[in-house]
C-alpha cells in the first residue's frame, strides 16, 4: 500500500563500528503514522553536508562517537536547516550540555530507555521542523503575493493612495508621488485632510468616504501639491473593510487631468469663439446704428455751431455800432444780422440742436446698455461653482443674442420663480446661447427669402429639485434620422463656416457635468424644443451607498 503521509528523509551519521544507532523503532513508528521514511546512513560530516544540499532533509541523527565529525555537523547544521539529534551512548550530562551548546535540537542518552525515547524525540523534532517549514512557505507565499501586489500598484498608470481611518497614508505609488510632487518617504504617514477638494463645492472626498462610506467614481477634484499648487484630477474613492466587515481606511485612485482639462477648455473656448463670432455681428450691428446717427449728429452740430458763430459775430458787429452811436451804421449792421439770422434759421437751428443732442444722448445710452449686457454676459468665470439665479443667466444671454435675431424673431420670455442652483454660470450661458442661436438659425432657414418672422419661446420653471429651461422655436425642425446624432461632436447640417458641429455636443457635456439632462423634441416644418434640466445640488457622478 502506498503511504498516504509525507515522505520523510532522515540522515544517520555514525561510525561503521561498533553497534549502529537503532532506528528500527523510530522508522516503524513513523511508518505507522503513514509516512514514507527514507534513511541514509553516512559516516562523515562532508557526506551529510552534500546530502543536505542535494535533497530536502527532515532530520539528522548523529552518533556522538563520530567525535570531530559530530562537532562539525553540529557546527554546520546546528543553527539552521534540519534539526540535529545527538545520540550519546555514554549519556553524561556534560556531553549532552555540550551538544545543546553546539546547536543540537535534542540529545538522547544511551541506556535502558534509549529505544523508547528516540522515536518520540525524532517525531517531535520532525513535527517542529515541518511546522517551521510550513510557516516558512506560507510566509514565502505572502511575500510573493505582496510582490505581485506591489508590482501592480507600482506599475499602474493611476496614482494610488491608501489611508487609514485617521486619513494617514499607508501606501502609495510612483504616479501618486509624481502628481503630489512628494517622495514616498514624505507621503507615508502624512495626513490627507484637505488634499482632495471636489471641483465646485470643495468637499473633501477622502474625508467623506471615511466618514459616510460614500464611494466616488470618476469625480472631478482638485488636489493640493506640496508647493500649494492645485492639480485637476479624476478620482475614485472607496472605503476598505477587513474580513470581519469593519472599516479600516480608504483607497483613492486618481489621474492627473491637467492635459484633459486643458483640451476640454480649449474645445469649450473654440466653441465659444465660434458663437462669439456670430454674436459679434449682431452686437456690432446693434452698436452701429446709434453710432451711425451720433456720428452724423456730431458733424451736424459742428456745422450748427459754425452757423451760430457767424450770427454771433454779426451780433458783436451790431454791439460795436451801437457803442459808436452812428444811426446809419446801426441800421446797416442790424439788417445784416437779420439777414444772417434768417439765412441760418436760428429758431430752427436752436430747436434742432436740442433734438440732435437728445437723440445722441439716447443713442449713447443704448450703447452703454449694450456694453452693460456684454459685461453681464461675460461676467468673470471663477472656475468654481456659484449659486446662481438661472433666470438672470437666461436673460443676460437673451439680451446678448437678441440684436442678431430681432429682425426675424419674436422672443417670448416666460420666467417662473425657480430655485437658485449651484453651477458654472458662464458655461450654462454658453449652452443657452447655443440653443438660442440654433433656434434663430432654424427660423432663418425656414423663412429664407419669404420674409415674415418666427417665434422663440424661452421659459424656465421649477421641477423635481431643479430647474427646467426650454427653448422652443418655429424653425425648420430636425430630420428624424439626425435626431440621435445631434449631440455627437462635429455633427452638423449647417453650412461650412456657420456651424462647428461642437455646439450641441459641448452643451451636452456642460449639462452632464452639472448632473442635468438635455432633451429635444422636433417636427420637421414645425419647429424644435430643447429642454434642459438642472438639479439644484449639481452633484456630478456621485455614487452614494
Amino acid at each position, binding site marked *: 500500500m502506498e503511504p498516504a503521509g509525507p515522505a520523510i528523509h532522515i540522515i544517520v551519521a555514525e561510525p561503521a563500528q561498533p553497534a549502529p544507532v537503532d532506528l528500527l523503532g523510530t522508522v516503524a513508528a513513523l511508518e505507522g503514522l503513514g509516512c514514507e521514511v527514507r534513511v541514509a546512513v553516512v559516516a562523515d560530516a562532508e557526506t551529510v553536508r552534500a546530502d543536505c544540499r542535494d535533497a530536502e532533509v527532515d532530520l539528522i541523527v548523529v552518533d556522538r562517537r563520530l567525535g570531530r565529525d559530530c562537532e562539525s555537523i553540529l557546527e554546520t547544521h546546528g543553527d539552521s536547516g534540519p534539526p540535529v539529534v545527538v545520540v550519546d551512548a555514554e549519556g553524561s550530562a556534560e556531553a549532552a550540555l555540550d551538544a545543546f551548546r553546539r546547536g543540537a535540537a535534542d540529545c538522547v542518552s544511551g541506556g535502558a530507555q534509549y529505544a523508547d525515547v528516540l522515536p518520540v524525540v525524532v517525531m517531535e523534532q520532525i513535527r517542529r521542523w515541518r511546522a517551521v517549514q510550513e510557516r516558512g512557505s506560507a510566509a514565502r507565499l505572502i511575500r510573493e503575493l505582496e510582490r505581485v501586489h506591489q508590482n501592480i500598484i507600482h506599475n499602474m498608470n493611476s496614482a494610488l493612495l491608501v489611508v487609514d481611518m485617521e486619513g494617514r497614508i499607508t501606501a502609495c505609488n510612483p504616479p501618486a508621488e509624481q502628481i503630489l510632487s512628494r517622495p514616498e518617504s514624505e507621503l507615508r504617514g502624512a495626513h490627507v485632510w484637505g488634499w482632495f477638494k471636489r471641483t465646485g463645492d470643495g468637499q473633501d472626498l477622502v474625508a467623506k468616504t471615511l466618514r459616510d462610506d460614500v464611494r466616488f467614481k470618476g469625480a472631478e477634484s482638485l488636489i493640493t501639491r506640496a508647493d500649494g499648487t492645485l492639480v485637476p484630477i479624476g478620482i475614485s474613492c472607496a472605503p476598505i473593510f477587513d474580513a470581519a466587515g469593519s472599516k479600516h481606511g480608504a483607497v483613492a485612485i486618481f489621474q492627473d487631468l491637467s492635459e484633459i482639462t486643458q483640451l476640454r477648455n480649449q474645445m469649450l473656448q473654440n466653441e465659444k469663439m465660434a458663437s462669439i463670432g456670430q454674436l459679434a455681428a449682431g452686437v*456690432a450691428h446693434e452698436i452701429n446704428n446709434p453710432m451711425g446717427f451720433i456720428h*452724423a449728429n456730431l458733424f451736424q452740430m459742428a456745422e450748427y455751431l459754425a452757423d451760430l458763430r457767424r450770427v454771433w459775430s454779426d451780433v458783436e458787429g451790431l454791439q460795436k455800432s451801437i457803442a459808436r452811436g452812428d444811426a446809419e451804421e446801426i441800421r446797416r449792421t442790424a439788417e445784416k444780422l437779420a439777414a444772417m439770422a434768417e439765412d441760418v434759421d436760428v429758431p430752427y437751428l436752436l430747436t434742432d440742436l436740442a433734438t440732435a443732442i437728445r437723440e445722441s444722448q439716447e443713442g449713447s445710452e443704448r450703447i452703454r446698455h449694450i456694453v452693460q449686457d456684454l459685461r453681464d454676459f461675460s461676467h468673470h468665470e471663477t472656475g468654481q461653482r456659484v449659486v446662481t439665479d438661472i433666470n438672470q443667466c437666461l436673460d443676460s444671454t437673451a439680451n446678448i443674442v437678441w440684436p442678431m435675431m430681432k429682425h426675424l424673431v419674436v422672443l417670448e420670455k416666460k420666467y417662473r420663480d425657480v430655485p437658485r442652483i449651484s453651477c458654472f454660470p458662464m458655461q450654462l450661458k454658453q449652452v443657452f446661447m447655443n440653443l438660442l442661436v440654433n433656434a434663430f438659425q432654424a427660423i432663418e432657414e425656414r423663412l429664407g427669402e419669404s420674409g415674415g418672422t418666427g417665434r422663440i419661446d424661452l421659459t424656465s420653471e421649477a421641477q423635481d429639485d431643479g430647474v427646467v429651461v426650454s427653448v422652443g422655436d418655429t424653425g425648420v425642425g430636425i430630420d428624424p434620422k439626425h435626431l440621435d446624432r445631434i449631440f455627437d461632436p462635429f455633427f452638423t447640417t449647417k453650412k461650412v463656416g456657420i456651424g462647428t458641429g461642437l455646439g450641441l455636443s459641448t452643451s451636452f457635456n456642460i449639462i452632464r457635468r452639472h448632473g442635468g439632462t438635455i432633451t429635444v423634441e422636433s417636427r420637421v416644418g414645425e419647429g424644435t424644443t430643447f429642454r434642459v434640466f438642472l438639479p439644484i445640488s449639481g452633484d456630478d457622478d456621485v455614487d452614494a451607498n
Partner: protein
Amino acid sequence: MTRTEENLPRLLILDDEAGILSSLRRALRREGYEILTFERVEDALREIELRPVDAILTDHKMPGMSGMQFLKSAAELRPNAARLLITGWPEAIPPSEIAELGIRALITKPWDDAKLKATLRAVLSEP
C-alpha cells in the same frame, strides 16, 4: 430757395431706426429735397404706391423684410426711382443681387455727410 415744394426731387428714406432718419434728414436739410422718412416697410410701400418718388434710400436689416426685398417691391411699383442702400455691412450683400436690382449706390453706416450728399446729388442729377 426759390423752388416750390412740388418741384423738389422727392427722396424717400426707410430705416427702422428713428435716430438714423432724424440724422439723415438733418444732414440733407439744405440739399433741396423733399424728404419723406418711414420707420415701417408697409408705410413706405404705401407712399410709393400713392405718389412717385425720385430716389429711395433704405436700410437693409429691418424686422419683417430686408432692404433688398423692399427695393424689389419698390422697383416693381416705381421702376424709375433711383435705388440706394445704406447698411453697416455692405460686404454682406452679394454683388450679383446689387447689380440685378440696379442699386445705384451702397452707403456704409456710419456715413460721411459730404460723401452722402455728393452721392445723392450725382444719382439725382442723372436721368
